[in-house]
């Protein structure tokens, strides 16, 4: 029982971790909470829904190709949407007061949710089950292939992201911009390109998280992004916002905490527990587990 809950927690946690990366990367570079990220997650899930429905598997030999399509297209779509949102709603406000981009992001969020609700419909949609799901039995512990897949894919994407940021030139540029926009610009880095790239990667990961969420729970809805969005944000804060490894760890910690709370305390009140964790972390350790203490510049 406990091990099964732990595995459920790891699966949920890997979705939160992927989702949280978008929050943390954008915060790291622009110091803003990208409130519309939860809608990118939702749009990613809808693109995945569309792709899974419209591209049936014609010949089984090409299964890996289909597989790639199923995940690359939502990733690209969600990433591009994030870049467009940044260009329209955040870029003009880059030097405005700190609350302005947040309000603009809320505007984007309202717009996207209602756009999907009015065009696709307010009812929840059943996610197509294209992936064969098998149940394994390890010494009495039930694991489904879907859980292994979600966990594996998330870990793979996180490793790729980590290598990209720590080893490539682009990644170095990203870290430089996060450190200081003006100095990075003086070193010949195109800050706007890097910011777009951050939104592309963060949005793409958010979109994938949306698809995985749809596969895991089997249904999607126009307002599906809100609750996981706040939880992913909690995960990002828990790990230290702006810190990429922290977001991954925070996602797993929150996922496990939530499933254990649902299993042992009260499944009805698991969301309350997640919100209480958020408030407590923000109050007592706003720099998170892995974040560094930042003294405010005057």
């Amino acid at each position: 029982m406990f091990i099964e809950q732990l595995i459920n927690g790891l699966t949920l946690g890997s979705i939160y971790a992927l989702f949280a990366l978008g929050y943390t990367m954008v915060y790291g570079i622009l110091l803003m909470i990208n409130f519309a990220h939860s809608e990118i997650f939702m749009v990613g899930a809808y693109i995945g829904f569309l792709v899974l429905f419209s591209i049936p598997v014609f010949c089984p030999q090409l299964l890996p190709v289909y597989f790639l399509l199923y995940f690359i297209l939502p990733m690209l779509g969600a990433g591009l949407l994030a870049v467009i949102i940044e260009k329209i709603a955040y870029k003009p406000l880059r030097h405005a007061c700190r609350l302005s981009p947040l309000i603009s992001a809320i505007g984007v969020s309202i717009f996207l949710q209602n756009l999907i609700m009015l065009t696709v419909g307010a009812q929840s949609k059943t996610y197509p089950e294209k992936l064969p799901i098998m149940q394994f039995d390890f010494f009495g512990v039930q694991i489904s292939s879907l859980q292994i897949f979600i966990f594996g894919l998330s870990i793979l994407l996180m490793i790729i992201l980590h290598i990209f940021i720590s080893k490539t030139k682009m990644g170095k540029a990203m870290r430089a911009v996060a450190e200081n926009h003006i100095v990075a610009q003086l070193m010949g880095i195109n800050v706007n390109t890097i910011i777009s790239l951050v939104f592309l990667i963060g949005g793409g990961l958010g979109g994938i998280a949306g698809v995985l969420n749809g596969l895991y729970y089997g249904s999607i809805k126009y307002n599906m992004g809100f609750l996981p969005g706040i939880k992913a944000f909690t995960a990002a804060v828990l790990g230290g916002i702006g810190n990429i490894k922290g977001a991954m760890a925070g996602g797993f910690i929150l996922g496990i905490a939530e499933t254990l709370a649902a299993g042992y305390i009260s499944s009805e009140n698991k969301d309350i527990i997640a919100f209480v964790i958020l408030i407590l972390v923000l109050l007592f350790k706003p720099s998170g587990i892995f974040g560094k203490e930042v003294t405010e510049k005057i």
Partner: protein
Amino acid sequence: MRWIIGIIILLLLIVLPLAGYNCGNYYAIHVAGLVGIYCILCVGLNITIGYTGLLDLGFMAFCAIGAYTAALLSIKGIPFWITLPVSLFLGGFIRYLLGAPVLRLRGDYLAIVTLAFGEIVRLIANNFDWLTNGPKGLPRVGERIAEIQLFSLVFKNDLQFYYLIFFFLIGTILISYRLEHSRIGRALVAIREDELAAGLSGIDVPQIKSIAFVLSGMFGALAGAIYVHWIGFISPEMFTFWESVLLVSMIVIGGMGNIAGAILGVFLLVGIPEILRPVLGTKFVDYRMLIFGLIMIAVIIFRPEGILKSKRRTLELEERF
């Protein structure tokens, strides 16, 4: 001159509903009452967002606390004039408890904490059946919320409630106006513009912030307590995150830090859509939020001070280096 215009508007607001009611225009009176409730909420929230510059994304939580307190007490038969102060006190007290640790946080973190608190209150209202009857809402079957009684007058129809709401709204506006031009109001503006400098100038920043935060929460509770007596029913889904966001967008679009702006925001986002609802059909109401989202982005980019600029709220939203 401004006084004369003000008095004329005041008289119109008193006389017109009476005339409208006698012509059988009940829907308009209902909308006017609703606009009044939202005005109380927005004038209250404006103290937090506009004067102090703290973004509060969970304001409906305090409306919910006020409404549930009033409903629970009045189901027991306690009269409105006792439940109202209790609701106000409880709303203010919980807001004080929340504010004491939370007001130390930076702007965007404060927004997230208030959001989380708003959701916690809604989820408690939704899950704690023994207290709040869960999603089915209050009052339970067989119970009813006691009517408001003033001497021998019993408030029953929309017109009577319109005058009650109008009375409280005038009170809210007067308090808010006096606050803005008081010593505390000036301290709030100083904190909004530069917290550190305000503290160094001898302002007790945590205390002043806390006063504004609590006062604005009490206005939320006031609106909730009146609303529940008027409609006679509450359920958790009236207090969602999106309601709180709607309040914020009213203030942003109308003009932050400005009572007239907050009221204009209510007219644009609640009054006009409700008036147009019978004309354009429910389809329009569906598109309402879509349009609000776009307007919010456009306003914050092209006119960050809102439609009605506040005279005192000068440089905060502009470039600062």
